[in-house]
């Protein structure tokens, strides 16, 4: 007789298999297409193995320019969002007043509205107040609006667990505010700050919706991919997808290795 727990186990196994197949199979197909000689992106019929699309991608100057823009934007967004998120987390965890809930709602609102709304409003704001038309700057501003909120939430979650008696003890021993902040608060928040910087970079590098509306005629990598996929469909974009996958796997492996090292220390 088959026990019911055995059936449940098999069902769970099948579900997991199905779920991860669903998650990875599209990416496998996409990668296969990158190596097919066919001029249009398709996996079948298979016309033979080639690296041509990687070579084409490598010689695509506009791709490199868009990539450069993406790096500039992402680094700037990290430099803005992490300090802003940290400050906002400090305000929300340390200060107490009636308007706090309202302020909190206002600060998380950028992640609750669609990215295109932020893109449009940022574009119009800089255009009508400062006569700065859409470009790298407005893209940075638009993205930082909601990425700061993500950083704030991440840092806040850790800041709430900080044992305040440590800070009080330092104050009692005569340490100044800056010293307490740099010697106690900041080291405690460090893991959250590092992960919020990572998240901010990824979010910025990935961002399509907000950037599309804020950036005007300039291009970041996602905007460039969007135009390519809509207008001149070529397997070179699949090659770019494979590049993303390789970088991602490399990143994931590095992360695991670093984590293991940390554990054995």
């Amino acid at each position, binding site marked *: 007789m088959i026990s019911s727990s055995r059936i449940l186990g098999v069902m769970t196994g099948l579900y997991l298999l199905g779920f991860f197949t669903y998650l990875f199979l599209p990416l496998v197909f996409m990668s296969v297409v990158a190596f097919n000689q066919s001029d249009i992106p398709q996996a079948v019929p298979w016309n033979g193995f080639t690296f041509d699309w990687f070579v084409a991608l490598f010689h695509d100057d506009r791709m490199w320019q868009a990539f450069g823009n993406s790096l500039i934007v992402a680094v700037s967004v990290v430099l803005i969002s992490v300090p802003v998120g940290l400050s906002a987390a400090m305000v929300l965890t*340390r*200060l107490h*007043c009636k308007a706090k809930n309202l302020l909190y709602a206002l600060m998380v609102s950028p992640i609750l509205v*669609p990215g295109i709304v932020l893109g449009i409003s940022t574009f119009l*704001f800089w255009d009508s107040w400062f006569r700065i038309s859409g470009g790298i700057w407005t893209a940075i501003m638009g993205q930082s609006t909601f990425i700061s909120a993500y950083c704030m939430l991440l840092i806040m979650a850790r800041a709430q667990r900080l044992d305040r008696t440590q800070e009080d003890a330092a104050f009692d021993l005569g340490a100044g505010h800056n010293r307490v902040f740099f010697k106690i608060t900041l080291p405690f928040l460090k893991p959250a700050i590092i992960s919020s910087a990572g998240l901010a970079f990824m979010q910025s590098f990935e961002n399509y919706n907000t950037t599309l509306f804020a950036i005007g005629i300039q291009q970041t990598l996602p905007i460039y991919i969007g135009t390519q996929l809509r207008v001149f469909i070529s397997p070179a974009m699949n090659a770019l997808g494979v590049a993303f996958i390789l970088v991602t796997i490399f990143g994931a492996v590095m992360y695991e290795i670093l984590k293991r090292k940390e554990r054995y220390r």
Partner: protein
Amino acid sequence: MTGIIKQAFASFGKTGAGIIFLLVGGWVIFMIISPQLIALDYSFRPLLPLRDIGGPKDAYTLKNYITLMTNTLHRAVFFKTIWSSLLVTFLALCLCYPISYYLAKAARRSHVSLLMMCIIVPYWINELLRIFAWQLILSDAGILNQMLLWLQVINEPVNFRAGDTAVIMGMVYAYILFMVFPLYNAMESLDKNQIDGARDLGASWLRIHWKIVIPHAKPGMAVGCIMTFMLAAGSVAAPQLLGSPSSFWFTQIIYTNYETANWNLGTAYAEVLALLCLVFMFLMLKLFKVGLKEFVK
């Protein structure tokens, strides 16, 4: 107000408080509030040729908002976007509930971090490319059609991209992580003894979920649904890459207005979209009886 400043000086010192207020103030005023006010201002003004701007014709009007209701195409697309986004949200919830439960309560600890990594890793690949992968599967010459033809299930390629099927499938795929994460976080804090206790007392598998797991996971379900709905309704890439001419999305109407420099109408529609997401959020928070504070988790 002075109370707040005194508190800030006491907690952060003068320099610290100054920097913190400057950063937070700059963010709230120049990035959150002012752009939204400017956008609202645009949305309530008519589209005018340059010479008329600031003139007598440049007065506040509801015209742009009324257009959404009078233009039958725009209205139909708007309601279709709501309906389809609800469907995406529901499908994502059904798909992600079991995996989240498995990761949070059923899986061995040593497996969890590996499986979690497997879920997160695809999200480091650009959203557009992830959605494009579905185009390769669902298009006329795509893998699914080729396979069905080969198996002789069909004689001619099926146009999977007609209607919204492809767009909805692409979106569910693209936003899984935003559903799994909040669900997993909420379920992880559930004490496993409660489940074991209920099981020992003879509760069925369904009853355990209905009476224990779901009530506990409510905040996560609310957050997951809110995020997924917002991403779906506001998605630009999925309809652009997977949609057919017959499956317009509300964001595409906004984008068309933007390209033709009709800022006023485009902005009004964007505001309606933002309002829609906020209304959905409040409905979810009421339905699941949770507060906005849950987002901190």
